[in-house]
């Protein structure tokens, strides 16, 4: 599926570029959703349907909503707008070049498999089985972790909001 891979790469890289180049933070958040959706497409392409669904629901859904809300809550009109100053180009370009250099030097050394095994059919059901047979205790611990996150977040938000 090289065509699908090409389209997804365009969406992912285009979204990532948009995040960096957009002058409005809200537009950056929207471009981030596009990049997240592109990555979700890669997961589907590899046969990881469940991971793809997680990527869409959690990252493109919930995390993006959190970003947008955080931006909307904190933004002021008086805030300086990130211009396209040479210093900014230099910083962004330098960071990108450093990251690319680190990744490429590592990718060269790593022996990557050139042929993927075919995705296991019905692998979402396999995950479900694994979740309730060998991993049932971690699964229940996750609910306690989520409860702790929920109560902690509510406490923090309430204190900062200063209401009741």
């Amino acid at each position, binding site marked *: *599926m090289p065509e*699908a891979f090409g389209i997804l790469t365009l969406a992912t890289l285009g979204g990532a570029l948009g995040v960096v180049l957009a002058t409005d933070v809200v537009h950056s958040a929207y471009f981030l959703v596009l990049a997240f959706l592109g990555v979700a497409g890669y997961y*589907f392409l590899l*046969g990881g349907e*469940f991971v793809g*669904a*997680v990527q869409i*629901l*959690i990252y493109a*859904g*919930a*995390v993006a*909503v*959190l970003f947008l*809300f*955080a931006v*909307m*809550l*904190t*933004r*002021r*009109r008086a*805030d300086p707008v990130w211009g396209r100053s040479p210093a900014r180009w230099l910083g962004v370009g330098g960071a990108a070049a450093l990251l690319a250099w680190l990744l490429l030097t590592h990718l060269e050394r790593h022996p990557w498999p050139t042929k993927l095994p075919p*995705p296991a*059919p*019905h692998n*979402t*059901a*396999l*995950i*479900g*089985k694994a*979740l*309730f047979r060998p991993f*049932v205790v971690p*699964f*229940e611990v*996750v*609910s*306690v972790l*989520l*409860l702790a*996150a*929920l*109560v902690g*977040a*509510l406490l923090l*938000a*309430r204190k*900062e*909001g200063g*209401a*009741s």
Partner: protein
Amino acid sequence: MPYFLGYTYVAVFLLFGILIPVGALLANRLLAPRHPDPEKLQAYECGLATPSDNTLPYNVRYYIFALLFVVFDVETIFLYPWAVAFNRLGLFAFVEMIVFIGILVVGLVYAWKKRLLEWL
């Protein structure tokens, strides 16, 4: 490749989902007359004058709902593999999922009792 064949439907839906709003906006741009003036460019033509643009800071209480949404979104994710494998898992998995949801309902009851779900 029969596996990816199912995704052609997704691709068709995606294509139409993109084409319909883009087409609607494009048709509007091409067909409608455009004579902008400051009065028309306001967000609302009637009622009170708009105090500012959308950079107005929002109430922090919205964030509580966003946080609740994230937690229950993660909970929902665990329901998917459970639902897909449900007919092969038996009673044990059903009870385990009830316990899982029950623990999170405790958090919801906590938020409810602390009156965090009410708009003050």
